[in-house]
C-alpha cells in the first residue's frame, strides 16, 4: 500500500465530504482506517437535476475547485508525477461503494476534456466515470497535470432526469507534483579537469617550493648522542605536545596529561557533530560554536607559545628576551655558511 501524503489525503477527504454532505473528519477517519465507514445521509435530496452546463462545469475542474491549479501555471505542467497514480487507485474502492452501475474500465479511462466537451452536446455522455491519468506515452499534453476523478452520486434512480443519465461529481483533484520531483536543481559546476586540477597542482608546487626552501635554510637539529644518564634542562616535548606539557605545570598530571587530551582532545572532538545539532552552516547562526572553537585555538596556541618561548631551566617561567629561547628544535635556525 502506498503511503499517501497527509495533505493529499485531507484534500481528497474534503472533496468527498463535500460530495456526500458529511463532516470532513468522519471521511478522513474512514480513509485512514481509524473510523467506521461513513453513513451517507440518504434523506438529503442529492438527486437534484443537473443541467448540461452544470454537468460540464463539474466535469471540467475549473474555478469551483480551489485545488485546481490555473491552466497557465507553468510549474504544474512540467512535473507530472507518476506517483499520483496510486493515489487515485487507492481511492477507487471507496468510490465504488456508491457506484450503483459499475462502469467498464475502458470507459473509465477516457479523458476529462473530451467528456466535458461532449457534455455540452448531449446529456447522455456526461454519465461516465472519468479518470485522468498521466499517460505513459506523454500524450497527456497539458491536460495531464491533473489526476481528476469524477464519480457518480449515490443515486437511487434519478427522478428528474431523462433515462440513462447519471450525474457526476468531482471527488478529488490530485496535484501531480506533490509526490516526487523529477529534475534536480541545476547547480553551477565546472570541470574538474582543468579547473580543480590546476588549483591542486599550483598548491602542490607552492608547498613543495616552501618545503625545499625550508629544508635548505633550516637544518634539522642533531644534539649529542642519546644519554639516559644525562637529563638536559629543560626537557621539552615536541612542539605539538608542548601545550599539554604547559598544562602539566598548572594541573595534576591525571587531569592535564590524561583527562584533557583524551576527553576534550579526542572523544570531545569526535562527538562535535553529534552534539552540535544546529543545521545551519552560516557563521552568523552558529556564534556559540565558532566562539568555542576560537577559544580552543587561541588557548592551545597560547599554551604552546608559553611552552616554546617562556619556559626555561626546570621548566620555570622565563622571558625569551632576557634568558634566551630554550627550544632545541630551532637550534640551527639559519645556516649561511
Amino acid at each position, binding site marked *: 500500500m502506498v503511503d499517501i501524503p497527509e495533505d493529499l489525503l485531507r484534500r481528497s477527504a474534503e472533496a468527498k465530504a463535500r460530495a456526500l454532505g458529511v463532516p470532513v473528519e468522519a471521511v478522513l477517519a474512514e480513509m485512514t482506517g481509524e473510523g467506521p465507514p461513513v453513513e451517507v445521509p440518504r434523506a438529503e435530496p442529492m438527486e437534484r437535476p443537473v443541467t448540461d452546463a452544470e454537468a460540464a462545469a463539474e466535469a471540467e475542474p475549473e474555478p469551483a475547485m480551489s485545488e485546481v491549479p490555473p491552466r497557465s501555471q507553468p510549474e504544474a505542467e512540467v512535473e507530472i508525477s507518476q506517483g499520483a497514480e496510486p493515489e487515485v487507485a487507492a481511492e477507487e474502492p471507496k468510490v465504488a461503494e456508491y457506484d450503483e452501475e459499475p462502469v467498464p474500465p475502458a470507459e473509465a479511462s477516457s479523458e476529462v476534456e473530451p467528456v466535458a466537451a461532449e457534455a455540452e452536446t448531449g446529456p447522455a455522455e456526461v454519465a461516465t466515470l472519468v479518470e485522468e491519468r498521466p499517460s505513459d506515452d506523454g500524450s497527456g499534453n497539458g491536460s495531464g497535470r491533473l489526476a481528476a476523478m469524477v464519480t457518480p452520486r449515490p443515486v437511487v434512480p434519478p427522478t428528474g432526469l431523462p433515462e440513462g443519465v447519471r450525474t457526476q461529481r468531482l471527488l478529488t483533484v490530485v496535484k501531480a507534483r506533490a509526490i516526487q520531483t523529477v529534475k534536480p536543481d541545476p547547480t553551477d559546476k565546472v570541470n*574538474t579537469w582543468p579547473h580543480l586540477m590546476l588549483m591542486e597542482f599550483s598548491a602542490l608546487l607552492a*608547498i613543495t617550493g616552501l618545503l625545499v626552501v625550508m629544508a*635548505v635554510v633550516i637544518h634539522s637539529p642533531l644534539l649529542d648522542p642519546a644519554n639516559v644518564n644525562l637529563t638536559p634542562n629543560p626537557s621539552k616535548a615536541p612542539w605539538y605536545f608542548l601545550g599539554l606539557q604547559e598544562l602539566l605545570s598548572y594541573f595534576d598530571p591525571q587531569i592535564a596529561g590524561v583527562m584533557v587530551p583524551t576527553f576534550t582532545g579526542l572523544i570531545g*572532538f569526535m562527538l562535535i557533530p553529534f552534539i552540535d545539532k544546529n543545521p545551519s552552516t552560516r557563521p552568523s547562526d552558529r556564534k556559540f560554536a565558532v566562539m568555542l572553537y576560537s577559544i580552543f585555538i587561541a588557548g592551545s596556541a597560547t599554551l604552546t607559545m608559553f611552552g616554546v618561548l617562556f619556559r626555561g631551566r626546570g621548566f620555570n617561567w622565563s622571558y625569551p628576551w632576557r634568558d634566551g629561547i630554550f627550544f632545541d628544535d630551532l637550534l640551527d635556525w639559519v645556516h649561511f655558511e
Partner: protein
Amino acid sequence: MANGNGRTALKDRVKEAQEKLWGSQVVEAILRPGSPFKQGYQDSPRNRSYVVMNNVLYHLHPVKVKRHGVKLSYTLCLGGLSFFLFIVLTITGIFLMFYYTPTGELAYDDIQRLSTDVAFGSLVRNIHRWGAHLMVLSVFLHMSRVFYHGAYKPPREFNWVVGVILLLLTLLLSFSGYLLPWDQLALWAVTVGTNMAGFVPVFGNQVKFALLAGAEVSAATLLRFYVLHVLAFPFVIVIFMAVHFWRVRKDGGVSGPL
C-alpha cells in the same frame, strides 16, 4: 621532407620519430581514452570528463565540482596538501630508511653520516622533518577550516570522526619519528611525552611499558618506535585516509563531492 642537401633535417626527423612513438601501439595501450597525452587530444567536454574518469589517480575526483569549491580563498587546499605532504614524507622516508639502522649503537652515527656522506642526505632529512611539522600544522588547519565552515554537519558526521582519528595518527607518526635520530633532544622529548602515558588511570604503567618496551626509553624503545613509525602507523593511516577520501567523494565536503 628534404632540404637543399637532399637530406632530412634533424628537426623533422625528431618530429617524425616522436609521432611514430606516440602513435605506436605501446603508447596507445598505456594511455586510456581522453588522456591529454594522447595524439590528437582535443579539448572537448567529453575529453574533459574522460581525463578524470579514465585515470586511476584523478578519479578520486568527480568529473565536475561546484564552482565555488575551486576558489582558493575558500578551500585553501589544506586536505589535499596534507595528503601530498604524506606522500612526500613517504618518499623521503623510504630514502632515509636505506641509510638508517634502528639500533642504539648505530642510529645516531647513521643520522650524522646522512649529512656528511650521503648525496642529498641532509636535504632529504630536512625535507622529511619539516614536512612532518608542516603536516601536523596543515592537518590541524584543515580541521579548523572544516569546523568554521560547519562541514561536519549531517551527512558528514562520520567523516569528521575519521578526520579526528587521522589527526591523532598524524601526531603519533610525528611523535614516533621524533625518537629516531637518537640524540638528546629525541630521547628526552619522547621521555617527557611518554611520561604522560604513565598517568593513565589503572593501566598507566602497563601502557607505558608497552609503548617503551621497558620501564624507560632504551634501545628496545628505538626499535619499537621505528617499526611503528615506518610500518604500523602508515598502514593504519592509509586505511583511514582511504575511508576519508571515499566519504568525501560520497557524502561530499561542504562544497559537494570533491
